[in-house]
């Protein structure tokens, strides 16, 4: 027994069906309506063609006949929207699958990216468009049953897709009703074609052709009568043909039919059914409750065997039964046909309906098709069981990208109090959280906790784990990390001896729990615990085939490793990004922690340009959304990059943005201190000492005692020309008397101390302090503190033999000042003399040479000579160039010479 065609999704729940298009087999009883096909050919020359016509008018048949034409020189990606499709991401994944299958890029289904819940739809639109662009062939996207897409974001995203098709790509869309797509631009540009019901009507001629193809001999006037009675309605004609086949007196049949006022579908459907052998009737009616059917399921519902044969024959005999996979194991009915069958079922066998739904539900549930199973339970009126199943599967379904489906299933429950309503509270919590209504989520969770205490043990554990998971995620979304972590221990022990379905559920829950727990711990600086849980979570997620969770765990692991060592952080971030890229998520919000942490690590080790590249990606990934914590990290990383590059004011803007993110978060965490400390330090360095002092004063006693803040206070004192006081501030940090986040703070402190010593005139102490900093920095090859504090200036004047870290010094100067400055490679061949330097420093001003001579109390001749020699030594041809070169070589600052 083959499983449902799992074209999209994580390999468990199939998303929409992209029926594999069998070229060359137009299906039985379909005539080639040449004129109509030609009309479609002409229409497809325009960018977008919309076929809008009611049920049963032959849209799908037209699309198939058209696509089947020999000599189609373009690739055709054919997809059909599943009935009641509420989840845009699944729609896009199905389309991606169809595009890849058509492009012939290997085994299309296996390569589909798994679902990333919450992934923005516009990103998917971009992805589809870029894949279309990459394939250089001409493409036609065919989307059937587009009216079935019932998500609020559908209109916007579809419009985006259709208006941005790359050149060489066309789209054909079939729908039963006009859709709210804003395509007026295309219409104005003459790029929109429409085919409507009137064009789809069978002409008299086509009716005759159809009858002939079906082997039904009718005299001309009778055929005309049939045509008029059905008004050229395709479904009617098809039903008629099915009823006429084998009729002893076809003329009389048509006459009676014409004489009746009953609607065509009604009349002919009844006739058609009557003519089927009893086992076929039974199968058609009893399987009509299903969206899709295969032999095994049909056998179950009919209580018979051999259903597969019947289904295959039905497909061969008429176009109302369609197979969904190349192996022809799964089928679905034409929607209207199925609808009518369902009605007939309710009419003739009303007592059996609920039972059929229940059978279907259990069969589907045992194969992991939870959403469909729940729908059937609801249809059977089995509300309690439906509620329990929905509660158990809500998190997993959300993870599968079916949040919209969960919400719809939830809405379908009647408003009642009682057991199932308590059950559904967890689902309501999950649905509310998905919509970011976090306060409602909290309320619901409290109710669920109370209810869980009364449940059976295995169920209770699962409920508790689910509650804890949802709670932790709320904490992440709020940025509130303080209080949750205690529940951790209870979470993670799960019993054994469950059914395989149960175990799958529990594994999902456990992986989610590990992820959320690990992230929360990272932010509250319980780094060892965080690492342990995230590593376990990643491994579990990999094992159970939940790549989204795996990437999330790895990305946060990279972030959490920053505290340990930058080399490890880099490695882990890169691993996370590699795994994410495998699934096409390297620009998604889920990878953002790794992108930001990698940029961070690179900046700390002095690779500013590479870091910027990653930082831009991180910023893009968190633009629309994302936890406040990660967005704060991105702002903070941007800020330190700006400081490192000497752009103090831009840095302050980024720090301000970081503080805005902080304001969205409840409570503090590891990064808060750094944001505050570096803001103050940057303000002080820019000369904004008043603001810096005010910011310092605004901190409470506990915050102000942190080592990072003491460093910032020292920066203020240095800017206020009080190096002695600065040294006193730094003493407490260097002696380890105050808490510090990590040794990075101490590197900074040593460097600030070095400045203070220099300002006090104690060159030797200054160099010792700098050497201490270099000692600490060497293992990780740290460079950022040297850039941020401006200590590279100290290194410049340091004699190279006086340090055992010559290589590091060179690298630092290279990174900060640009290549070549660190070594002597590009120094001017001759040093400028003192008098020449004095003249050089006047060049950027707008003083004339005569005025410069006056300033320096020398003759004009002397100045001219100096300038000539300056130009020669700097390789400059004019004043501007000399200034530029002087600036590059940092000769213009007034240093101690």
């Amino acid at each position, binding site marked *: 027994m083959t499983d449902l065609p799992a074209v999209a999704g994580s390999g468990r729940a199939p998303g929409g069906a992209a029926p594999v298009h069998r070229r060359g087999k137009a299906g039985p009883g379909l005539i080639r309506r040449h004129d109509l096909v030609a009309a479609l050919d002409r229409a497809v020359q325009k960018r977008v063609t919309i076929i809008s016509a*009611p*049920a*049963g*008018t032959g849209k799908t048949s037209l699309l198939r006949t058209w696509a089947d034409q020999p000599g189609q020189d373009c690739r055709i990606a054919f997809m059909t929207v599943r009935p009641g499709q509420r989840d845009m991401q699944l729609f896009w994944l199905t389309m991606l699958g169809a595009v890849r299958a058509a492009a012939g890029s290997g085994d299309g289904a296996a390569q589909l990216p798994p679902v990333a819940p919450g992934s923005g739809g516009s990103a998917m639109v971009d992805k589809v468009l870029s894949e279309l662009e990459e394939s250089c062939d001409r493409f036609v996207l065919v989307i059937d049953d587009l009216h079935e897409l019932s998500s609020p974001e559908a209109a916007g995203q579809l419009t985006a897709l259709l208006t941005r098709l790359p050149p060489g790509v066309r789209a054909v869309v079939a729908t*039963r*009703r006009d859709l709210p797509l804003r395509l007026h631009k295309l219409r104005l540009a003459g790029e929109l074609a429409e085919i409507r019901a009137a064009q789809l009507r069978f002409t008299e001629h086509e009716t005759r052709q159809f009858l002939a193809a079906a082997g039904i001999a009718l005299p001309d006037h009778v055929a005309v009568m049939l045509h008029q009675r059905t008004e050229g*309605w395709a*479904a009617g004609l098809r039903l008629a043909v099915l009823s006429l086949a084998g009729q002893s007196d076809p003329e009389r049949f048509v006459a009676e039919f014409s004489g*009746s*006022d*009953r*609607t*065509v*579908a*009604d*009349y002919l*459907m*009844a006739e058609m059914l009557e003519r089927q052998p009893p086992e076929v009737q039974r199968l058609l009616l009893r399987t009509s409750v299903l969206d899709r059917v295969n032999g095994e399921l049909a056998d179950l519902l009919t209580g018979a065997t051999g259903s597969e044969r019947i289904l295959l024959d039905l497909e061969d005999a008429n176009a109302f039964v369609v197979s969904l996979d190349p192996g022809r194991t799964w089928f679905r009915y034409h*929607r*209207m046909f199925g*609808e*009518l069958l369902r*009605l*007939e079922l*309710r*009419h003739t066998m009303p007592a059996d309906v609920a039972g059929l739904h229940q059978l279907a539900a259990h069969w589907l549930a045992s194969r992991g098709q939870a959403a469909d199973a729940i729908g059937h339970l609801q249809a059977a009126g089995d509300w309690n069981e439906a509620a329990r199943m929905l509660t158990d599967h809500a998190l997993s379904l959300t993870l599968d990208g079916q949040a919209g489906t969960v919400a719809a299933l939830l809405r379908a429950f009647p408003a009642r109090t009682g057991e199932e309503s308590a059950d559904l509270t967890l689902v309501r919590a999950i649905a509310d959280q998905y919509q970011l209504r976090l306060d409602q989520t909290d309320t619901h969770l409290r109710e669920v906790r109370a209810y869980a205490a009364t449940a059976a043990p295995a169920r209770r554990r699962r409920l508790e784990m689910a509650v804890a998971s949802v709670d932790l995620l709320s904490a992440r979304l709020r940025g509130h990390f303080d209080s949750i972590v205690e529940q951790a221990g209870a979470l993670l022990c799960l019993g054994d001896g469950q059914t395989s379905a149960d175990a799958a559920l529990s594994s999902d829950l456990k992986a989610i729990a590990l992820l959320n727990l690990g992230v929360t711990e990272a932010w509250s600086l319980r780094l060892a615990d965080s690492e342990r849980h995230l590593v376990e979570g990643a491994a579990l997620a990999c094992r159970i085939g939940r790549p989204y969770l795996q990437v999330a765990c790895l990305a946060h692991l990279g972030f959490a490793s920053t505290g340990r060592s930058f080399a490890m952080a880099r490695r882990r971030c890169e691993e996370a990004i590699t795994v994410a890229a495998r699934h096409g998520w390297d620009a998604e919000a889920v990878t953002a922690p790794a992108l930001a942490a990698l940029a961070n690590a690179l900046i700390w080790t002095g690779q500013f340009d590479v870091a910027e590249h990653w930082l831009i990606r991180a910023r893009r990934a968190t633009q629309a959304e994302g936890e406040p914590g990660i967005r704060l990290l991105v702002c903070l990383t941007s800020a330190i990059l700006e400081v490192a590059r000497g752009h103090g004011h831009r840095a302050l803007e980024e720090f301000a943005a970081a503080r805005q993110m902080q304001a969205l978060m409840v409570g503090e965490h590891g990064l808060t201190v750094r944001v505050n400390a570096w803001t103050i330090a940057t303000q002080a360095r820019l000369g904004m000492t008043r603001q810096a002092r005010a910011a310092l004063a605004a901190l409470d006693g506990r915050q102000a005692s942190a080592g990072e803040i003491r460093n910032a206070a020292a920066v203020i004192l240095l800017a206020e020309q009080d190096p002695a006081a600065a040294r006193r501030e730094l003493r407490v940090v260097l002696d380890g008397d105050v808490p510090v986040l990590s040794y990075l703070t101490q590197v900074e402190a040593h460097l600030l101390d070095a400045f203070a010593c220099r300002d006090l005139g104690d060159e030797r102490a200054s160099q010792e302090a700098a050497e201490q900093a270099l000692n600490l920095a060497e293992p990780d090859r740290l460079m950022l503190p040297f850039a941020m504090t401006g200590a590279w200036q100290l290194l410049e004047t340091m004699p190279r033999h006086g340090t055992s870290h010559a290589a590091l010094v060179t690298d630092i100067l290279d990174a900060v000042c640009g290549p070549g400055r660190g070594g002597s490679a590009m120094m001017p061949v001759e040093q400028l003399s003192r008098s020449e330097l004095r003249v050089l420093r006047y060049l950027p001003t707008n003083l004339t040479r005569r005025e410069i001579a006056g300033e320096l109390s020398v003759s004009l001749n002397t100045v001219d000579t100096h300038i000539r020699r300056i130009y020669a030594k700097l390789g400059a041809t004019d004043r501007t160039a000399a200034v530029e070169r002087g600036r590059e070589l940092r000769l213009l600052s007034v240093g101690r010479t």
Partner: protein
Amino acid sequence: MRFHLPADDHVVMDWGPALYMIRVDGHLGAMVLYAFPGMTPQQKGAHTVLTGWLDQSALHGVLAEIEALGLVLLEVRQVESHGEITEIQ
């Protein structure tokens, strides 16, 4: 006993059910009528008129069903606008 609200000329959002008459082409047989359990069918000439009390959601449900069955919709008319209203003291 039905009470009407005091005469309002301005449009008020009415959430309650109203009496609708929906006309479709052709006579609906027993099978298809099963799709409209809350409605009473009446054959008028070559058409069928379905009458019933529907709130807005139910109305759209009926229209969706008509679309799904490929019936030809001819007319939708609201005949009476207010449902039973209990007297408010």
